[in-house]
C-alpha cells in the first residue's frame, strides 16, 4: 500500500463564504479532494460554512458540517469525530490559517491528528514576511529589498542602500491607500510622509520597485520523495504592479526563452523543496524584460485560484493529484487521469493558448475606485482557449458578459487620446480596451509599451486585431478576410454589425462561405498520446475532434463568470442538473467558461465545451452535437438570456418555455397575468423616458422602486424619494439601456418572503419558505434569510403556497421557479417571479434535504413529481432553523458604499443552523465573519424616521452593557430617552473625531440607519467606509440590529446578585 495506512478518517476544511480573492475555485478543489479521498476508501469529514457549494452536498463526504469556520467549531468537530488527519491545503487561505492555528496551539498533536500535505514550520516561512525573507536569503533566491520603517529618517537610511524608485506601502490600509511609488527625491519624501500618516500604526513597508517587470507564475506539485513537476507556467499581460487576480493571464508563458523559463523553473523548484510541501504550490516571480534578473514575489503553499486555472488550462487535475500525495502517494505511482495510460509524473504540454480575464464588479459598484493595484478586486474570471492569442483574448472578452463582443468599448471610443494615454498608466479594468483604442488611433505600440511596460509581443497581437478590423471595414464581405477574422477570434456579432446583418443572418452567410469552427481536445500532452478526455474548445482549423452525441444528449448552459448577483449558487444548480441528466440515462453536455467551477471539471459531465456562452458559440455546439434539447434554467440570467435567440433558431429549449420566461420578465404581460388570476402586486408601471417617468410617478406616489428589465441581482435597482432622484435615474438608464423600459413600482415596506418551487406542469413542490430578517428594500441577496419562516400565520403560509402554485401553473413552469413576496398588514403581494434556478436553491436544498435542481431537471425531462415520488405542496418543516447570512467584500473595494439597498452588494453567503433562532443567528453572524462583541461602544446614527422604532432595540443593547457614542441629534434623542450617550462631533463639522475613533479601535459596533443620499462626501459614507476598512461591524438596517442583540442576549450569562 503506497498510501499512509493509518489514515482512516480525514477532516477537510473548506474555504467558507465567497469573498473577493477566495471564490468558487475552492469548491472545485475541495470537491475534487473529497471525491479522491472517498475513492481511496477514506472516511471524510467536511467543515465548510458555505451552503452554496457542491462540496457541502451530503453525498460528497461521509459527514458534512456546515458550521462556522473558527477554531472553536473546528475543535468541537475534531473532538467529536476523532479523525486521523487534517487536510488544510485545499480550503484556501482560510483553511490553511485555521489549520495552522490548531497546530500551533498544540491541539492537533494533543488529539493525535496529522496535518496532511503541509509542514507547520516550513509553512510559516511562506506566510510570515520576515521568515520568508530569511528563507529566500538562505536559498540565495532574490527578493526585492525591503524594510519596515516608522519614520522619515529610517526611510532615508534605507534609500541610501537601495536606490529609487521605491514602493511605499502603509501598514493596515486598504490596498496600500496612502502609499505609492517614489521615482524622485521630492516624491520620496512626500509619499513616505503620506504613507506614515495613512497607516493607523504609523508604519510603512519600503521596498525596491520592480514595477514593469514581467510577472510569471509557476504551478508546481511535489511529493514526499521530493519529485517535483511544473504543471503549468503562466504569464501576466499586466506587468508587476497589478495583482495577478486582476491581471489578464496567459498560459503557457509567451515571451520567455527557454533560458529564462528554466531559471524561473529552477527557482520555483528550489523553493517548494525547501518548504517541503507535499502537494500543490504556487510561486510568483518577476523577471526583468531587459536581463535575466528576477525576483521571487510570493509563494502560496497550497492549492490556489491559479492552480484551478492551471488545471483547467492544461487538463491536469492539480487538486486530485495533490490530495493523493497528501495521503502518501508519490507522483510516479499515479496514472495521468487524462490519458489513463501514461504517468501523472510529467509536465503537461499544451497546444493552444489560454487567456484568463478577470470579471470585475464595477457594473454594480459604479462609484468604486477602479484602479488596479496590489489589492485584488475581481469577483470572478473567464478563461478562453484558442490556437492563437488573439482568438483566446477575443473569446474571453465576449464571454465576460459586460455588453462587449469585441476589443472595443464605447467609453474609450469616446475618450480623447490624451485622456486614454493618461489612463493606461494607472491601470483600471478597462486598460485592454483603452490600449486597443489607442492603437486604433495609430498611437505606436512602442509608445504604449513605454507607458505601460506591457510586453511588445502582446501589443503586437492587439495591433493585429486592429489591422484586421481596418481591413474588414474596407471589405466586410471578403471571404478570405472573414476567415482570417474568425481564425483570430472575431465574433459573429461584430462581423454581423459590419455587414448590417443580424447575428443569425451573418451566421448563415458565414456558413454559406464554408467558414465553420472545429473542436479540439484538451489532453495535457499536445496529442502525443491518445486520450479520451471529453474536454473540447472551438477554433478555426482543419480537423474536428469532437463528434455528434445526438438525441440521447442534453446540453446544459452554465452560468459564466462569478459576479455579484450570479455566484457559485448557479454552478451548484448546473452541476446538479448534469447529475440528474446522467441519472436518467442521457449524456450530459455542458458549456461554460468559468475555470473556477465544478461544472468545468471534465469528470462531472459526459462532455465539456470550454467556450463563451454566447448565441454563436452555443449554436456551434448545438449544430455539432444535435442534442435532444437545451436546458437554460440553471445557468442564471446568462443562460436565460440566450433563450429568445435559441428559440428563434429552432432549438428545443427544455422546461419552461421562452414565452413563459417572457411573461415573467415583461412588465405588461406579467401584470396582465396577475390581474387575470387575481394576485396583488405593488402598484407599478414602466417608462421609457423622463417625461413619462415623472407623469407616472405622480400617479403612484413616492417612494418608488426602479429597475431595468432583464437584469440580475438587482443591478441598477434603486429606491427614489423625489422627482430629482427620479430624473437622475431615468437619464442614466436611458444611456445604458436605451431601448429597454424601466420598471417603476410603489415601494412597499413590509416583510419579505422568498419561495423556490418545482413545478411539473400539474403539481408543485415547495421544499420550504424563507423569511427575510431585513424588511423589503434590502436586496434579497443581501438579506439574512430564515428557514422556516418565524412570523407567518398558518393562513398566510397557505396563501403563499396557493399563490405559488397558481403562478407556477399559469406561467406553465416546468422546472424551477423563484418567487419573492411582500407581506404587509396581512396582505400578500408578489414582488417578482424568476422562472429559473435562483440563488437560494443550494441553501434550501440543503436545509430541507431535497435535491431541488435534480428533481427539477427530471421534471424538465418529462418525469412528473408523482413519477419521481416527490411529495407535492409545502414539505413538512425540519427540526432545525437555518439562516443564510450575506457576506460582503467591502474591505477590498475602496469607495463602495456599504449601506444596503435594493441593489445587491454581497459576494457570498454563509449558513448558521441550529435548534433555535438565537443560536442559529449566532452561527450565521460568526460564519459570515463577524466577531460578535459582548460589550463595548456602539456608534449610533439613526435617521429621524427610524428613531421610534430603534429605541427599544437600543435599550436592549444598553441593558446588555453597551455604551453609546453619537452625534448631537442622536445623542440628544438617546439622552431624552434616558440612555446615556457620549457626544461626538460630526464629520461635516470639520472634525476627524469619528473616523479616528473607528480607526483607533474605540468603536466596537456601528448602527447607522441611513437617511437618503449616495453622496460619497456624506458623513455616513465616510463612517461606513472607515468601518469596512478597519473591520468594525457596521449595520445599516434596524432589523439586523435587532437580530444581533437577540444573539448577544442569548450568549451573555447573567450574573445574578443575591
Amino acid at each position: 500500500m503506497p498510501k499512509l495506512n493509518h489514515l482512516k478518517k480525514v477532516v477537510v476544511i473548506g474555504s467558507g463564504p465567497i469573498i473577493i480573492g477566495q471564490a468558487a475555485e475552492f469548491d472545485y478543489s475541495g470537491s475534487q479532494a473529497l471525491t479522491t479521498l472517498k475513492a481511496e476508501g477514506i472516511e471524510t469529514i467536511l467543515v465548510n460554512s458555505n451552503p452554496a457549494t457542491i462540496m457541502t452536498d451530503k453525498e460528497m463526504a461521509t459527514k458534512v458540517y456546515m458550521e462556522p469556520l473558527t477554531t472553536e467549531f473546528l475543535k468541537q468537530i475534531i473532538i467529536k469525530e476523532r479523525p486521523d488527519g487534517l487536510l488544510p491545503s485545499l480550503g484556501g487561505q482560510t483553511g490553511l490559517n485555521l489549520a495552522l492555528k490548531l497546530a500551533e496551539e498544540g491541539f492537533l498533536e494533543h488529539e493525535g491528528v496529522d496535518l496532511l500535505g503541509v509542514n507547520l514550520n516550513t509553512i510559516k516561512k511562506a506566510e510570515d514576511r520576515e521568515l520568508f525573507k530569511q528563507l529566500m536569503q538562505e536559498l540565495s533566491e532574490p527578493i526585492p529589498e525591503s524594510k519596515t520603517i516608522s519614520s522619515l529618517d529610517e526611510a532615508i537610511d534605507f534609500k541610501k542602500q537601495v536606490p529609487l524608485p521605491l514602493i511605499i506601502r502603509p501598514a493596515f490600509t486598504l490596498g496600500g491607500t496612502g502609499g505609492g511609488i517614489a521615482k524622485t527625491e521630492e516624491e520620496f519624501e512626500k509619499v513616505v510622509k503620506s504613507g506614515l500618516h495613512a497607516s493607523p500604526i504609523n508604519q510603512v513597508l519600503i521596498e525596491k520597485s520592480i514595477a514593469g517587470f514581467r510577472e510569471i507564475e509557476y504551478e508546481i506539485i511535489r511529493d514526499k520523495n521530493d519529485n517535483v513537476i511544473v504543471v503549468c507556467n503562466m504569464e501576466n499581460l499586466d506587468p508587476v504592479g497589478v495583482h495577478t487576480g486582476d491581471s489578464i493571464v496567459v498560459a503557457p508563458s509567451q515571451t520567455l526563452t527557454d533560458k529564462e523559463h528554466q531559471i524561473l523553473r529552477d527557482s520555483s523548484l528550489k523553493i517548494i523543496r525547501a518548504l517541503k510541501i507535499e502537494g500543490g504550490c504556487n510561486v510568483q516571480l518577476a523577471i526583468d524584460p531587459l536581463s535575466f534578473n528576477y525576483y521571487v514575489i510570493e509563494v502560496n503553499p497550497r492549492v490556489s485560484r491559479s492552480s484551478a486555472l492551471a488545471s483547467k488550462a492544461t487538463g491536469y487535475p492539480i487538486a486530485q493529484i495533490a490530495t493523493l500525495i497528501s495521503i502518501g502517494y508519490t507522483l510516479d505511482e499515479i496514472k495521468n487521469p487524462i490519458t489513463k495510460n501514461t504517468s501523472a509524473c510529467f509536465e503537461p504540454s499544451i497546444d493552444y493558448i489560454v487567456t484568463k480575464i478577470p470579471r470585475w464588479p464595477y457594473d454594480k459598484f459604479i462609484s468604486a475606485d477602479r484602479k488596479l493595484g496590489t489589492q485584488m478586486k475581481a469577483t470572478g474570471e473567464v478563461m478562453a482557449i484558442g490556437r492563437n492569442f488573439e482568438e483566446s483574448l477575443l473569446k474571453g472578452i465576449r464571454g465576460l458578459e459586460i455588453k462587449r463582443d469585441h476589443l472595443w468599448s464605447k467609453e474609450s471610443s469616446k475618450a480623447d487620446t490624451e485622456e486614454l494615454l493618461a489612463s493606461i498608466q494607472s491601470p483600471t479594468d478597462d486598460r485592454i480596451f483603452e490600449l486597443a483604442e489607442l492603437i486604433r488611433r495609430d498611437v505606436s505600440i512602442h509608445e504604449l509599451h513605454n507607458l505601460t511596460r506591457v510586453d511588445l509581443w502582446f501589443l503586437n497581437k492587439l495591433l493585429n486585431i486592429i489591422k484586421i478590423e481596418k481591413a474588414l471595414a474596407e471589405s466586410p464581405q471578403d471571404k478570405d478576410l472573414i476567415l482570417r477574422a474568425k481564425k483570430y477570434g472575431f465574433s459573429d456579432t461584430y462581423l454581423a454589425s459590419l455587414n448590417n446583418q443580424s447575428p443569425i443572418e451573418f451566421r448563415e452567410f458565414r456558413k454559406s462561405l464554408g467558414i465553420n469552427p472545429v473542436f479540439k481536445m484538451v489532453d495535457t500532452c499536445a496529442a502525443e498520446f491518445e486520450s479520451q478526455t471529453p474536454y473540447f474548445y472551438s477554433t478555426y482549423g482543419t480537423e474536428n475532434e469532437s463528434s455528434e452525441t445526438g438525441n440521447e444528449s442534453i446540453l446544459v448552459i452554465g452560468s459564466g463568470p462569478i459576479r455579484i448577483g450570479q455566484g457559485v449558487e448557479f454552478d451548484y444548480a448546473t452541476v446538479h442538473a448534469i447529475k440528474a441528466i446522467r441519472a436518467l440515462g442521457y449524456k450530459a453536455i455542458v458549456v461554460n467558461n468559468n475555470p473556477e467551477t465544478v461544472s468545468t471539471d471534465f469528470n462531472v459531465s459526459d462532455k465539456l465545451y470550454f467556450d463563451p456562452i454566447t448565441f454563436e458559440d452555443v449554436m456551434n455546439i448545438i449544430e455539432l452535437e444535435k442534442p435532444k434539447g437545451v436546458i437554460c434554467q440553471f445557468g442564471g440570467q446568462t443562460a436565460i438570456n440566450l433563450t429568445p435567440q435559441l428559440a428563434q433558431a429552432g432549438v428545443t429549449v427544455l422546461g419552461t418555455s421562452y414565452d413563459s420566461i417572457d411573461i415573467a420578465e415583461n412588465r405588461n404581460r406579467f401584470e396582465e397575468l396577475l390581474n387575470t388570476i387575481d394576485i396583488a402586486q405593488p402598484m407599478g408601471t414602466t417608462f421609457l423616458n423622463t417625461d413619462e417617468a415623472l407623469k407616472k410617478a405622480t400617479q403612484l406616489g413616492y417612494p418608488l422602486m426602479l429597475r431595468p428589465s432583464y437584469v440580475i441581482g438587482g443591478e441598477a435597482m434603486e429606491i427614489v424619494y423625489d422627482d430629482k432622484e427620479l430624473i437622475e435615474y431615468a437619464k442614466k438608464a436611458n444611456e445604458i439601456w436605451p431601448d429597454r423600459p424601466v420598471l417603476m413600482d410603489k415601494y412597499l415596506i413590509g416583510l419579505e418572503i422568498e419561495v423556490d418551487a418545482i413545478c411539473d406542469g400539474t403539481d408543485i413542490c415547495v421544499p420550504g419558505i424563507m423569511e427575510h430578517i431585513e424588511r423589503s428594500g434590502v436586496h434579497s441577496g443581501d438579506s439574512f434569510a430564515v428557514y422556516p419562516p418565524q412570523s407567518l400565520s398558518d393562513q398566510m403560509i397557505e396563501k403563499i403556497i396557493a399563490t405559488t402554485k397558481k403562478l407556477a401553473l399559469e406561467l406553465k413552469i416546468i422546472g424551477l421557479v423563484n418567487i419573492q413576496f411582500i407581506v404587509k398588514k396581512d396582505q400578500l403581494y408578489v414582488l417578482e417571479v424568476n422562472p429559473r434556478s435562483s440563488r437560494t436553491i443550494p441553501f434550501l436544498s440543503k436545509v430541507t434535504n431535497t435535491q431541488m435542481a435534480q428533481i427539477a431537471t427530471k421534471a424538465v425531462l418529462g418525469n412528473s413529481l408523482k413519477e419521481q415520488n416527490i411529495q407535492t405542496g409545502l414539505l413538512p418543516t425540519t427540526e432545525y432553523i437555518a439562516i443564510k447570512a450575506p457576506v460582503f467584500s467591502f474591505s477590498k473595494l475602496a469607495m463602495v458604499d456599504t449601506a444596503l439597498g435594493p441593489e445587491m452588494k454581497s459576494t457570498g453567503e454563509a449558513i448558521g443552523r441550529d435548534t433555535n433562532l438565537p443560536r442559529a443567528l449566532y452561527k450565521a453572524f460568526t460564519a459570515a465573519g463577524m466577531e460578535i462583541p459582548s460589550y463595548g461602544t456602539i456608534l449610533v446614527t439613526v435617521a429621524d424616521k427610524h428613531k421610534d422604532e430603534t429605541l427599544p432595540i437600543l435599550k436592549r443593547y444598553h441593558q446588555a452593557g453597551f455604551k453609546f457614542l453619537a452625534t448631537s441629534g442622536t445623542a440628544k434623542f438617546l439622552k431624552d430617552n434616558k440612555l446615556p450617550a457620549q457626544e461626538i462631533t460630526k464629520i461635516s463639522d470639520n472634525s476627524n473625531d469619528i473616523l479616528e475613533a473607528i480607526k483607533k479601535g474605540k468603536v466596537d459596533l456601528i448602527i447607522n440607519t441611513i437617511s437618503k443620499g449616495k453622496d460619497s462626501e456624506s458623513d455616513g459614507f465616510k463612517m461606513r467606509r472607515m468601518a469596512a476598512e478597519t473591520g468594525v461591524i457596521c449595520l445599516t438596517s434596524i432589523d439586523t440590529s435587532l437580530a444581533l442583540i437577540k444573539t448577544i442576549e442569548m450568549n451573555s450569562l447573567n450574573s445574578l446578585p443575591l
Partner: protein
Amino acid sequence: MDNKMYLYLENGMEFEGKAVGHQLEEPQLSEIVFNTSMIGYQEVITDPSYCFQSIVFTYPLIGNYGINLDDYETLAPSANSIVLGEYAQKPSNFRQRYTLEQFLDLHQIAGIHHVDTRMITKVIRQSGTMKSILFPNKLSESECKDLFKQDLRSDQIPFVSTDKICHFPSHGGLRIVMFDFGYKKNILESLLKRGCDVIVVPYNTSAEKVKLFNPQGIVLSNGPGDPMSITETIPVIQELQKAYPIFSICMGHQIFALANGAKTTKMKFGHRGSNQPVKDFAKNKVYITAQNHGYCVTEDSISGTDLEITQINLNDGTIEGLKHKTLPSFSVQYHPEASPGPNDTKFLFDQFIHNIKEYHA
C-alpha cells in the same frame, strides 16, 4: 509574403499553408517528426539530431522571442524544415537579434505555417514517423508517389560530425574526449563549466588515436538517425571502455548499448519534447527530461549483457538509462544538458566527473 506552401505526407494526406523561411526550388523530402516543447524552438531547430528532418511544433505560436546569438545548439543547423501553426512575425525579447524568418533564410531551412499542426501530430502518432514532402507548388498524387519512393538519407552522422579534431583547452582540468555524433553545444558547455579540458573528435576516430590524447574520460554525444548507420564506431567503444569511464548521451547511449551487445530498434514516433518523465531506480526518483530520439535500446536485448537498466521512461517503459555492471560507464537516452528543457539531470555531469576521479584514484 503569404506565398503558399504544401505539405504532403507519405500516407497521402496533403496540407496547404503559407511559406516561411527558405524558398524551395525542388520538392524537399524529409522524415517528419513532432516536438512537444512549448518553449525553446531555437535550441530545437539547431539541435543536430534533427538533421534532414522536418519538425512539427505542437505548440502553435513559434518565433515569439525571435532568435538570439546565445541559444544555438550548433551554428550550422541541419534540419530540413519546420511545420508551424503560426510564425510570430513580431518577436519580442531583449536578446533577440533576428526574427525566426531571417534565421530560417540564413540557414536555408524551409517552413510552412498556418496548418493544423495538431492534426498532423495525431497522424504521426497514429501511423508513426513517415516521409513528407514540402513544396510551394501543387504536386499530383503520382508525383508524390514517385518522390516518396526515394530513400531518406542515412548519412546524417557523417554529415553533422566534425571532420577535424577540436580542442577546448582548460589547464589542469580533467581531459575528456567527446565523440561527436552531432553534439549539442550545451553538452560541451556543461563539461567546460566543470573545468574539463575537452577534445572533440570525429565519430569515426580510432581507439588508438583517442588513447594518444591520454584522456581521463570519454563522452559519447547525441546525434541524428540510426545508431546502426555507424557500426564502425562500435569496436572502438568496446576497446575504449576497458580503459576509460564513459558517459553517453542519446545516440551515444545507443552506441554504448550496441557496443555491449544490446540491440536498438526504431520507435513508432519517438520521444521529442521537454516533459518526459524518467524514473531512476537507484534513487527512487523521477526526473523531467528533455528528449529527442527516434530509436531506442530494446529491453529484452539487455539480458545476457554486462549492462543493467538504471532508468526507464514512466510513460512507455522504454529504457532511459544503462550502466555497465563492472566498468565505470553509464548512459542516458535523454539530454541531461537540457537546452531546451528542465535542468533536473544536470547532476549527471557531476556524477561522471566523480566516476572519473574515483576510477583514477
